[in-house]
């Protein structure tokens, strides 16, 4: 019993410390500018002015939609490309696969800043500016995702693969009948990861779009902050909260599936 209470205390303290920055942002978004300047920790009353300001000054819901479509496409693309490649690396014993795998891995080391201008020129040559292809295609191949799924596929017992072959199961069939369902946890982790990292992109969407109809919510955040002027911290925090809500929401839903998948993996051992 003492042991449980002790753990709960540690858990609560850790959770509070970890979540404090987000709570503080929420708290500040409800403050008046006067309270901000007084250095308050909590607002004296709940004040929605900052949120009204956010909604009124940018086409927020449209930006959210564009961000959603872009992130969803990248998520699906990454899942498809990464799982196909990881499958090949694990279940197709062709020569040179280790070499190719390490070549893939090495791309993780490339600083992203170095690729952005050549990639931008490529997208421009393809005439993909202001399109969802331009926004998403460069992120479909994710070495991190291939790596993650390969590690997971490696844990699938060889017996399943062998007995499936005996039953005359084709490679493609094994891929979507066994390999994918057995890797749900890693796939959902990768899905959440892919969605969130894409949602959070700023410089790339800014470069490849010239039109508010394909602008993302991160650009919207920047539009709210005056460049050399005074930041109204309550408005900035309100914008931060608005951007955080969808991703946190997705994560809170997604985490359930990730956890389920992980426990399933544990039982399988």
């Amino acid at each position, binding site marked *: 019993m003492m042991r449980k209470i002790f753990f709960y205390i540690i858990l609560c303290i850790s959770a509070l410390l970890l979540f404090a920055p987000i709570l503080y942002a929420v708290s500040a978004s409800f403050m008046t*500018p006067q309270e901000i*300047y*007084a*250095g308050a920790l909590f607002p004296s009353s709940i004040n929605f002015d900052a949120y009204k300001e956010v909604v009124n*000054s940018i086409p927020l819901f449209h930006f959210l939609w564009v961000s959603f*479509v872009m992130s*969803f*496409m990248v998520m*699906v*693309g990454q*899942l*498809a490309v990464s799982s196909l490649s990881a499958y090949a690396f694990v279940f197709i014993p062709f020569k040179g696969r280790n070499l190719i795998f390490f070549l893939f891995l090495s791309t993780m080391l490339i600083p992203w800043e170095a690729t952005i*201008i050549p990639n*931008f*020129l490529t997208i*421009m040559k393809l*005439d993909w*500016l*202001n*399109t*969802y*292809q331009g926004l998403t295609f460069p992120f479909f191949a994710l070495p991190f995702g291939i790596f993650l799924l390969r590690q997971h596929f490696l844990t699938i017992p060889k017996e399943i693969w062998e007995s499936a072959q005996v039953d005359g199961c084709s490679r493609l069939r094994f891929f*979507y*009948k066994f390999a*994918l*369902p057995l890797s*749900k946890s890693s796939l959902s982790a990768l899905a959440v990861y892919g969605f969130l990292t894409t949602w959070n992109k700023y*410089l790339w969407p*800014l*470069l490849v779009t*010239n*039109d*508010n*109809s*394909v602008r993302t919510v991160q*650009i919207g955040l*920047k*539009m*709210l*902050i*005056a*460049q*050399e*002027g*005074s*930041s109204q911290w309550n408005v900035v925090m309100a914008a931060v909260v608005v951007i955080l809500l969808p991703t946190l929401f997705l994560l809170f839903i997604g985490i359930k599936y990730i956890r389920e998948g992980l426990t399933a993996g544990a039982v399988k051992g």
Partner: protein
Amino acid sequence: MNRNIFGSFLFVSLIVVFGLMACSNKTDGGSEEDNDIISVTFWHSMSGENGTNFEEIVEEFNNQSDNIHIESVYQGSYTDLITKIRAMGNTDEAPAIIQASGTNRKYLAESDFVEPMQKFIDEEDFDTSQLEENALNRYVIEDTLYSMPFSTSNAVMYYNKDMFREVGLDPDNPPQTFSEIEDAAQKIKDATGNYGFTMATIGWYFEQLLANQGELYLDNDNGFSGEPTKSLVNEEAGQGIFQWLDNMNKAETFKNYGSDWEDPRAPFLAGQVGIYFDSSANIREVVKQAPFEIATAPLPVPDGVEPHGATVGGNSNYITNKVSEEEQKAAWEFIKYTVSPGVQAKWASVTGYFPVTKAANEEDVLKETYDEFPQMLTAVEVNNKTPAEPAMSGPLSDDGEQFRSIIEAAQEKVYEGEDPKKALDEAAEKINDLLK
């Protein structure tokens, strides 16, 4: 069961993705949808409240024009926008009008894709004498005006009048020299325990303090009479500035609050510091938020030096040659509109920039604003007194942005105890390396 759900999810997702790709037709901003209406793309960096006000000006122009439609697109910060222009300027994707800050003026003027503003001015005999000479000079290179100034500001000194009264300083007679500020800051410190003076660590202020002494930043007239070969920042005038900051820092009457524009504002508004420098474009906001009385004054000079005035900050607009002649003409119509007295008066009164067009000062809307915020007049008066000299137009170089961060790093070294002369000499050396 589970497997089927998973498989169908993947399948549906793939269909959705490819469906979206097929649907996402290119939405091109620059093409003419209507035969009578010329669409002109304009890339800008106006965000926050300035962004909203700016969009209003564009909308008003579009409403009053029969055949021109300005398509204004926010392209991130000045740096983001120039990044994009560096990559796209020379292609057909380039917009008709580009907004840029002064540090990029040499790059843009020398690029292949900018049509000098002078061309449109000459073709039409447009009368530039109605515009502020000092603002134009910043963008004139070898007698050619490359861009039309739109927003102009300079650096001014803000001070807390209530605090001045409290500590026995004359609130209507602010300190005007380096040593007067040192004394005032000491007085504030002694009487209240607060800091006397601060400024954000932004290289722009150093440029302003140098210009106010009428001194050059680079040789060859700040780069206006030829390629600069040597930095002059560590001559006597620059050393004086660093020494002055070091004195106050050592006396603990100065505090460094950071390198963002707004870093010193919060402590100033909270009454933790009595005097600070800021862009004149922020006077309105700061005065509105302050729970005490604020006044502004020109930047100080070393004792015995006559104040010269200020370099204009802000931004200007360029017309590119990557669009049809028709679009260029339409762009020029819009540019003229942006410097018309009515628009400049409105822009100045809602933002805090001072007008580029002299006649704007006579507009009622601006007069009313000045009545309400007399603090805004300091920047206008300083600008009017500023002589037409290369020293007042700031350093002209592709590396202007980098010069600033070099000076900033040197300043930060001094704040942490480095010898000011050594820090500035090293900074000058680094700038010289870049000029090679």
